[in-house]
């Protein structure tokens, strides 16, 4: 059986940052496994300039940050298996990986890792309404992949459901890709994402309907595709208010109703989970090393609660440093010093009206770690 010092599942911002940090701190063999054709995760379709500080490469487009991190990982000698899926774990940190081979075939490989970092990211939520399975209804993430990775327009006239940062940013990028965004629809009384992102949508003359939801999507277009979308105002209890319907011609509906953590692999281990609403569902509890209740198994990024790329990146760094410490590559004192710096930056990212809830959620999740006093 293959032996690895560190296995990282998921090559998004968290996994990549973890791999780089572990390597920099002297871990010899680091294996990064990802089921996609390219590494970088969501970074590879974020064509907008990122927020944050200089340490977070703020002002740099996500796609360029992803490329720079990939290059760094490559130069540091991180081994990357793409089109490869970690399908399960056995006791004693034995992983079962369906490895994508060069000839396109798959091969089952068992490997024993001394330490594991699970950074499997998040998954989009679905919203159900009459006609939700009509062709042309898709996740905002799917639409974003189509325009920014595959350079294909998902449709011409698009209704976006959801005004979190994903809904706002993808709406903007759909317009950049030459699509027409008909309107944005938001069930809450206020816009969820940053005002500066909403301002871009407003300047483009696109209406944002808060306190509204989609009532029905009709599929009378070619091959049963979306042809019109009816939205309706809702009361404070989210019940539709009759007579407030508005109908728009549209061929596409994109859903940006939040994400949930992808925690299947975490659940395969004997790891304690906590339910946390603001973080999107069940997440593994962990300590300040990002270590789970299974010693030697770490988590980072959206798997630990849905946030954003910068927090994922920083958490990945913490996990990478901690794995290096566990493997004896650096001293506990050195690891503590590095972690303190990263946690200070994480605290900064979880401040302000948009960060507070996540700061509280993170505290709650970590307070459940055995031995931690609430």
């Amino acid at each position, binding site marked *: 059986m293959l032996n690895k010092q560190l296995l990282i599942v998921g090559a998004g911002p968290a996994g990549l940052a973890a791999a780089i940090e572990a390597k920099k701190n002297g871990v010899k063999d680091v294996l990064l496994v990802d089921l996609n054709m390219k590494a970088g995760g969501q970074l590879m379709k974020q064509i*907008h*300039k*990122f*927020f*944050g*500080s*200089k340490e977070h490469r*703020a*002002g*740099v*487009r996500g796609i360029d940050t992803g490329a720079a991190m990939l290059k760094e990982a490559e130069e540091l000698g991180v081994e990357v298996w793409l089109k490869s899926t970690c399908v399960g774990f056995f006791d004693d940190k034995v992983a079962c990986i369906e490895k994508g081979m060069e000839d396109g075939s798959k091969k089952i490989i068992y490997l024993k890792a001394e330490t594991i970092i699970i950074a499997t990211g998040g998954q989009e939520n679905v919203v159900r309404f009459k006609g939700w399975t009509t062709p042309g209804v898709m996740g905002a993430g799917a639409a974003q992949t189509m325009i920014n990775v595959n350079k294909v327009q998902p449709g011409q006239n698009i209704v976006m459901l959801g*005004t979190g940062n994903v809904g706002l940013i993808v709406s903007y990028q759909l*317009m*950049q890709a*030459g699509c027409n965004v008909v309107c944005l629809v938001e069930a809450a*009384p*206020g*816009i969820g994402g*940053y*005002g*500066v*992102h*909403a*301002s*871009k*949508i*407003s*300047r*483009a*003359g*696109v209406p*944002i309907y*808060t306190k509204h939801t989609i009532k029905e999507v009709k599929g009378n277009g070619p091959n049963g595709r979306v042809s019109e979308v009816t939205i309706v105002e809702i009361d404070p209890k989210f019940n539709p208010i009759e007579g407030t319907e508005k109908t728009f011609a549209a061929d596409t509906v994109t859903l940006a109703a939040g994400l949930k953590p992808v925690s299947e692999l975490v659940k395969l281990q004997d790891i304690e989970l906590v339910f946390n609403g603001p973080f999107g569902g069940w997440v593994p509890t962990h300590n300040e090393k990002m270590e789970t209740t299974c010693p030697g198994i770490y988590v980072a990024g959206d798997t630990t609660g849905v946030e954003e790329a910068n927090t994922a990146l920083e958490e990945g760094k913490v996990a990478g440093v901690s794995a290096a410490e566990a493997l004896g590559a650096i001293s506990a004192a050195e690891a503590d010093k590095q972690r303190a710096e990263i946690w200070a930056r994480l605290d*900064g*990212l979880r*401040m*302000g*009206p*948009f*960060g507070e809830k996540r700061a509280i959620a993170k505290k709650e999740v970590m307070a459940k770690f055995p031995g931690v006093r609430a």
Partner: protein
Amino acid sequence: MSIKEVGYISMQELIDAKQNISDARYAKGPVAVVECVQEIPCNPCEAACKFGAIKIGEPITNLPKIQEDNCTGCGVCVAQCPGLAIVIVNKAYSDTEATIAFPYEYIPTPKEGEEWEAVNRQGVVQCKGKIVKVMNPKAFDRTPVVTVAVPKEFADEVRSIKRK
């Protein structure tokens, strides 16, 4: 109505955030107007300005403040702001016209000399505008900064052009 409810900023919100520019400063020529009234963790604008004219400090969620007297209106911050929330307003452009330099990431990129419809923060057409400058150097990293000249009375309203 706040930006959170309607999706665009009001003049009152700018004043409350102390991001409005004095008439005396406007009289002197081009100046950066930062329209960023929510406390988000972001500070590239501060680092972008070599004149120290944008202050955020610690914590990173502080609202950016323009130091009017330090700002030269050079426009380097405009393309650096990930939120596309900075414009350069020149109310002293001519006796009758003002210019607004704004980030514009749509295709086609306007060309100098063209006439476009100028829009306000809600995307409502205010007047015709003449494109007087288009900057897109490598340092702007694919965020062109377009300068449009409009009648002076629209200087506080016009923030972009209508997408073609």
